[in-house]
């Protein structure tokens, strides 16, 4: 409950549903909307570039890290390929050297061959046996753990390959010992088209060690396959030797290649491979993408955390700033509207004062007559008793008093009628009648100031269904302004015309001082007045503008300095209930 109370206290005032009731000023601001727009705009401007930059940086960093990993894989494959190629090349070259350095007869000597095998094994390592095969494919001499003398190799494919190409490096195979090994055979040509072949069996243990000692991240793997896709060396997790490799045989390339793929179980992989020259072997380096990208995943969390924290901070600041600003505007506006209210009230009081002065003056004249007539009657009765009774003077004076009282009565009735019509109900209104009523209060001023008032409202102007009080106030304000603008002896012309089937226009033209083009732009602004210090509040036209808007009308003004001003009010013939104004 305390949290709800705290949140309620933090909630800005403009969101608490406190409506500013300001009559025609109420349309000024929609604060929640202003607040939402401010937040949306500021958030867009601040967050979108941040997100874009972060996403861009994220992608660049990801790409750079991946490129680095691919490059490292490529380098590892390349180095390993060189080591294995060197291993095989060294042993092939050694055999080459032996066939060139020894007579064929010497090599057929078992003791000599045994010695060579021992030297090779101690010098290079991995040599298991050594045999000399004649051009018929028959093993003539053999040193090693088995007894292969006399074995005929002529039907075997490798023998044909040696005959044709001069060298053969076999796949890995188990052989009799059930130990993985491979065979290197070199051909030595003799005179008359004859030749012999030196064949050595090599234990694959040493290069298995090269591969197993490679630093392949996590559960990565490095192994050889042959061109049929059969695994040739032990693997960590890719299968047993002589099994089909889980990856397809990659396309031939002279250079080391790296590619990304997905294992059968859906695990993404980075694979580097290299064809070992002059052999059937393909070196495969397999890394699990997830494991090698660990560093990237840590960085990625940093990226996302940074983005989330930044966006949260930005949004908090934006929310606080927008709330503070809109609330300040709301409070200022409220104060302003309260001032406007006060001024409006003062302006209304001033209007009532003017009206009261006019009425008092109107009533004062018949009152003065009554006073004099009653005084005269008294004089007649006290001073000239006889005459008064005889010639009917008293009767005449009494009639004059009654007539003056009637005149007062007419004025008070008109005032009452005007006051009664100052309500806000919509009524059917005859424009000439309304204008006569409004002018009734200004007639005496016009007479005293010799202002000629012309009213031209054609008979075809239809009745209006609108707010009578507002219409009275509108024309009272405009005509009052016209009177104030004119010197004595001016002319005021009021004309009505029908502009379209739904509207009438009423123009009020004076021959006053006019309004300068600069002032013309501001005449409807609250507190703008050229009569400052002369009793002008600067609210008359602002209020008039608001009232016209409320009854669905429009106001236009034309003015020439020194010639006069013409206000034209366009009014709808009918104003519907709220929200339906035509």
């Amino acid at each position, binding site marked *: 409950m305390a949290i709800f109370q705290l949140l309620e206290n933090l909630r800005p005032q403009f969101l608490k549903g406190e409506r500013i009731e300001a009559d025609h000023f109420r349309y000024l601001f929609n604060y929640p909307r202003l607040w939402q727009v401010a937040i949306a705009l500021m958030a867009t401007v601040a967050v979108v570039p941040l997100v874009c930059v972060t996403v861009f940086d994220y992608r660049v960093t990801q790409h750079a890290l991946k490129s680095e990993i691919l490059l490292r894989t490529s380098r590892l494959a390349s180095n390993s390929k060189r080591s294995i190629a060197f291993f095989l090349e060294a042993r092939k070259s050694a055999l080459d050297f032996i066939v060139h350095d020894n007579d064929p007869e010497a090599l057929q000597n078992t003791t000599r061959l045994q010695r060579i095998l021992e030297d090779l094994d101690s010098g290079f390592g991995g040599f298991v046996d050594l045999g000399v095969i004649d051009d018929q494919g028959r093993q003539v001499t053999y040193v090693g753990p088995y007894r292969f003398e006399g074995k005929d190799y002529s039907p075997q494919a490798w023998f044909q390959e040696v005959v044709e190409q001069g060298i053969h490096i076999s796949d890995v195979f188990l052989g009799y010992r059930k130990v993985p090994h491979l065979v290197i055979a070199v051909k030595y040509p003799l005179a008359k088209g004859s030749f012999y072949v030196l064949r050595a069996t090599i234990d694959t243990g040493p290069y298995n060690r090269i591969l197993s000692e490679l630093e392949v991240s996590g559960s990565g793997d490095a192994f050889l396959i042959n061109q049929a896709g059969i695994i040739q060396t032990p693997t960590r997790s890719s299968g047993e030797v002589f099994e089909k490799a889980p990856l397809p045989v990659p396309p031939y390339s002279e250079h080391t290649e790296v590619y990304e793929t997905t294992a059968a179980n859906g695990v993404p992989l980075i694979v580097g491979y290299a064809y070992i020259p002059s052999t059937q072997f393909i070196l495969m380096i397999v890394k699990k993408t997830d494991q090698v990208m660990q560093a990237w995943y840590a960085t990625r969390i940093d990226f996302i955390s940074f983005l989330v924290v930044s966006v949260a901070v930005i949004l908090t600041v934006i929310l606080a700033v927008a709330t503070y600003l809109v609330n300040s505007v709301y409070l200022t506006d409220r104060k302003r509207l309260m001032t406007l209210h006060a001024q409006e009230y003062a302006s209304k009081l001033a209007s009532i004062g003017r009206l009261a*002065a006019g009425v*008092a*003056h109107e009533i*004062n*004249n018949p*009152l*003065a*007559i*009554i*006073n*004099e*007539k009653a*005084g*005269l009657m008294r*004089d*007649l009765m006290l*001073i*000239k008793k006889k005459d008064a009774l005889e010639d009917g003077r008293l009767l005449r*004076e009494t009639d*004059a008093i009654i007539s*003056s009282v009637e005149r007062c009565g007419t004025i008070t009735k008109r005032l009452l009628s005007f006051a009664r019509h100052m309500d806000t109900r919509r009524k059917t209104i005859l424009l000439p009648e309304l204008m006569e009523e409004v002018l009734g209060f200004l007639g005496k001023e016009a*007479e*005293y100031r*010799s202002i000629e008032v012309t009213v031209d409202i054609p008979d075809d102007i239809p009745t209006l269904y609108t707010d009578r009080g507002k219409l009275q106030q509108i024309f009272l304000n405009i005509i009052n302004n016209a009177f104030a603008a004119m010197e004595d002896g001016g002319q005021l012309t009021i004309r009505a015309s029908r502009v379209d089937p739904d509207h009438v226009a009423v123009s009020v033209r004076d021959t006053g001082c006019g309004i300068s083009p600069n002032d013309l732009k501001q005449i409807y602004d609250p507190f703008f007045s050229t009569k400052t210090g002369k009793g002008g509040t600067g609210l008359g036209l602002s209020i008039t503008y608001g009232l016209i808007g409320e009854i669905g009308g429009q106001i236009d003004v034309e003015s020439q300095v020194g010639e006069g001003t013409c206000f034209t009010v366009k009014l709808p013939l009918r104003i519907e209930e709220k929200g339906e104004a035509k």
Partner: protein
Amino acid sequence: MRVLLVDDEEEFVATLAERLRIRGIEADWATTADEGLQRVVETQYDIAVLDVKMPKISGIDLKAKIQALSPATKFIFLTGHGSEKDFIAGTSISEFYLIKPVQIDDLMEKLQTAAGQTGTPS
């Protein structure tokens, strides 16, 4: 004492003139400035009682015109409510004014005082 009353309300000015006449004062009246000026041309008045607010011309302006024709004439102004400002702005403080409706005794007193200033016997 000869007094000229000028006011646009005929009933008022005629009745007031009659009441003054009952009190022994020679009072004439006019309802327009032109009529009033015509009377001044025809007759020498000791005092002019003028309404401050009249159509076309104010009492203050009429006073200037009468003064041009008859410099010795003294003035008393009649004013409605709310017109004191106009009156005070356009006249000197030595002149008299009465607020309508006037009490005949007050007017008589002012007439006597004004007449005393001119030295004309009442």
